[in-house]
């Protein structure tokens, strides 16, 4: 049976275990970010690139950036950060690089893989522009260049602080010193951080990483036991420890100022006199060394800036194929076979080995050969740190595919470098290779890992931007005139259509009124009908034909009757002469001249119709005049 005390202990253990595992559970997935300080730079201008890997565990190697042709990259250091916020721990490592464009254009850094704690992380392709308005090939460092009186003297063997350097506390300070202050581009400089202390001191790393813009950087690993010795400076004994060593390779001639960053150390307050007080010096373990419960003080130590002058390569004797390699090197080359078939690939492996900045070595140039198709294959670097000298070997592979049978030759390839010790250029050659090529109809097959020729083709790069050129011919005015005319025409059309629309509305309104009042419609249209008939009758009145004369009076009778019946709203079919006479009499009176005239017209019409007398031309004219007069009078009276 579990006792209460045991149960309580178990519960406390569970809570502890949960608290300990919680941060692990909450830890974010590893991810990689690429951060540029700018996406556009001039030729020769530096672009700072930071690759931040966060959430990864274990040792992370500096990623190798596959830079396109025309761009150079330089690794400038790393920094680590660990934060613990709201129970979530975030560890991140930042690798800093400098990219320098050597020609204008748009460059795309392709996606590449970064190994972090056994996980392969992939970056996104990133594009940035290098413009033509540049600084030339001699890029100025980002750090502010400070005027120098001349090349600085080599640093002294005993690394005392420079005369101008005044530490806040002369019992503890850091000196950043270089082994050379005047160098050639790509020549190694060793930067050493030495901590001088008279306190009981614990070194806690860099709180601010150094700024070494303009340098390709390689760190030397620290020994398990940091080297330390005792020195006397200005008569005082100090413990001196070399806490960091970095190899620097300047990228271009200029005067550089290295800002060495800030170091963090914790000390016990009182300067110690005895040698034994340095026992826990550089003990990284927080719990060991007995320092945990003692009262300590944190110090930020800022070394003095370091000036370096990088002078250009001598022009005298510079080989045409010199590509910036500096150091001492050896070169070997070997082919994987010397007897091949036509279209069968032969791989030439070139190895350059020695001391210097191996990473930046470039492949010896391969001339164009009409008998071969040539493909560049992989290159690999094996970096070595021998003491405090960076070296190693770099291997290049070039694939040759012979196109013709017979004896073929791969010529000697050359590689030039500058030896800073002798200040001379040296040129190395590979041996020439003779290939015996047998005839074959087989198609060429590229070795594995080699990309297809299509992928090797270079993309057209935009080399700069400028305004478009002036127009040398004025514009055609026809289009502009047509637009103006079209607008005018459309205005006119719209006006006319609006008028037609208004007329349509009036017509519709009138039709509605006439639909309600039929008599009004008849009265309104009586004159129009009479006028139409009048013009017809006029034509008929001119005829001499007796039949036509009879038809004239017949039509006149109809027209007059229709007009009067319309005006008096009588049915045209039932209107009689008598009813019309009564209506006229009611309007005009029996004594009115027109009353008598109308009756006369009717008499004439009857005479002509029933043949009691042929109506003469005078009668026709008179009858027509009376009809016209009737219309005029009644239009006025019955308005």
């Amino acid at each position, binding site marked *: 049976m579990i006792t209460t005390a045991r149960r309580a202990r178990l519960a406390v253990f569970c809570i502890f275990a949960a608290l300990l595992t919680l941060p692990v559970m909450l830890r974010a997935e590893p991810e990689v970010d690429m951060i540029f300080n700018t996406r556009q730079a001039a030729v020769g201008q530096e672009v700072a690139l930071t690759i931040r890997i966060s959430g990864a565990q274990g040792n992370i190697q500096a990623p190798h950036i596959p830079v396109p042709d025309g761009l150079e990259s330089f690794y400038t250091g790393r920094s680590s950060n660990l934060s613990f916020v709201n129970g979530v721990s975030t560890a991140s490592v930042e690798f800093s690089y400098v990219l320098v464009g050597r020609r204008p254009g748009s460059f795309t850094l392709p996606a590449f893989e970064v190994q972090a704690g056994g996980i392969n992380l992939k970056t996104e392709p990133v594009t940035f522009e290098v413009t033509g308005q540049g600084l030339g090939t001699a890029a100025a460092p980002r750090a502010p260049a400070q005027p120098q009186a001349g090349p600085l003297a080599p640093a002294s063997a005993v690394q005392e602080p420079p005369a101008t350097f005044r530490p806040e506390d002369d019992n503890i300070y850091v000196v950043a010193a270089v082994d050379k202050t005047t160098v050639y581009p790509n020549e190694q400089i060793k930067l050493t951080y030495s901590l001088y202390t008279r306190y009981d001191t614990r070194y806690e790393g860099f709180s601010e990483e150094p700024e070494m813009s303009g340098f390709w950087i390689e760190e030397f690993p620290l020994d398990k036991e940091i080297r330390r010795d005792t020195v006397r400076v200005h008569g005082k004994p100090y413990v001196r420890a070399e806490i960091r060593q970095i190899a620097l390779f300047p990228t271009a001639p200029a005067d550089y100022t290295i800002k060495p960053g800030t170091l963090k150390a914790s000390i016990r307050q009182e300067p110690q006199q005895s040698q034994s007080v340095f026992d826990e010096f550089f003990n990284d373990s927080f719990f060991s060394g007995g320092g945990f419960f003692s009262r300590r003080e944190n110090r930020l130590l800022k070394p003095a800036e370091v000036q370096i002058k990088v002078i250009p390569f001598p022009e005298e004797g510079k080989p045409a194929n010199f590509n910036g390699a500096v150091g001492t090197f050896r070169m070997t080359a070997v082919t994987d076979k010397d007897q091949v078939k036509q279209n069968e690939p032969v791989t030439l492996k070139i190895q350059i080995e020695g001391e210097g900045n191996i990473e930046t070595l470039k492949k010896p140039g391969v001339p164009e050969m009409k008998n071969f198709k040539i493909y560049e294959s992989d290159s690999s670097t094996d970096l070595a740190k021998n003491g405090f000298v960076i070296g190693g070997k770099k291997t290049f592979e070039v694939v040759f595919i012979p196109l013709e049978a017979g004896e073929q030759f791969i010529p000697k390839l050359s590689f030039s470098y500058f030896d800073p010790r002798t200040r001379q250029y040296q040129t190395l050659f590979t041996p020439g290779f003779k290939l015996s090529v047998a005839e074959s109809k087989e198609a060429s097959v590229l070795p594995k890992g080699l990309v297809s020729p299509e992928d090797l083709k270079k993309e057209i790069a935009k080399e700069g*931007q*400028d*305004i*478009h*050129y*002036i*127009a*040398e*011919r*004025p*514009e055609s*005015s*026809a289009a*502009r*005139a*047509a*637009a*103006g*005319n*079209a*607008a*005018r*025409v*459309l*205005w*006119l*059309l*719209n006006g*006319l*259509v*609006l008028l*037609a*629309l208004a007329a*349509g*509305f009036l*017509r*519709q309104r009138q*039709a509605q009124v006439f639909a309600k009042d039929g008599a009004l419609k008849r009265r309104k249209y009586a004159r129009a009908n009479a006028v139409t008939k009048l013009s017809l009758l006029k034509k008929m009145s001119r005829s001499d034909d007796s039949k036509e004369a009879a038809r004239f009076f017949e039509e006149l009778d109809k027209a007059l009757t229709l007009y009067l019946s319309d005006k008096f709203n009588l049915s045209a079919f039932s209107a009689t002469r008598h009813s019309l006479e009564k209506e006229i009499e009611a309007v005009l009176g029996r004594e009115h001249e027109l009353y008598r005239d109308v009756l006369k017209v009717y008499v004439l019409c009857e005479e002509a119709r029933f043949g009691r007398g042929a109506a003469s031309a005078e009668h026709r004219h008179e009858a027509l005049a009376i009809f016209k007069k009737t219309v005029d009078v009644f239009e006025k009276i019955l308005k």
Partner: protein
Amino acid sequence: MKINQSRAFVRPPAVLRMTVFAIFSAAAALLFCGQAGAALSAADQSLFQEANRLYRGDKYEQAAQGYQKLAEAYPEESVFQFNLGNAQFRLKHSGAAILAYEKARMLSPRSRDIRANLNFALSQLEYRVEDKRSWYVRAGEDWLGRVTETEVLILALLAGFLFLGSWTLALWLRAGRPWGVPRKTLLIFFMVSVAIFAAKRIETRMIRDAIVMTKQAEVRFGPSEGDRVAFRLGEGLKVYVIDRRQDWSRIVLVNGDEGWIQNSKIAEVLA
């Protein structure tokens, strides 16, 4: 048998047919025989060639003077403004260059050369103003910036003619019938096109674009030297004039900031 009255076609009256024919004949005559744009005189033609020659010889100052004269004589010609912009750009007068490009863009809003040079000149400016306007305002301005006022007017007039014409024909030939889908569609088209025209009109006449012409210009809280400085603008930046006094203009930026600037420090695009 029942006759579908609504579908029955009524032959238009002869008067109406003749009227329509007359209208279209007159319109066609006006369209093709109307007033053509002013062509370059021989003297101006040679002035243009001379300015081009000076430009080619890197004599941008003199070339700019020639283009300026031509631009004033032919205000509807975008080529002169474009070339003037190029000459001013070469002289590093970013304000004058952008002003000329903006003027050229108003005349030929879809010219790729003008747009490219304007964008390039803008990209070279030292200052930028963050555009905080809504996306639809930006999209609307961009769209309206691709058409001229005449083109939008033609669209509105055409839409009006189609709508009014269809209504008139319906009134004369099929009076009393309800509005069908085609006529409703034409009405919407007409209303939209009128709205576009109104927007373009407001954009060009009421909210007037202006360019800062001095290296640095102070924008104040009020229209006097005594008022406090609100912010400073750099040469070539575009502002919108929303009010104008004798010596001062009230301007607004695309980020919403407002203030008063001296008229001598800006130049309106549609002067």
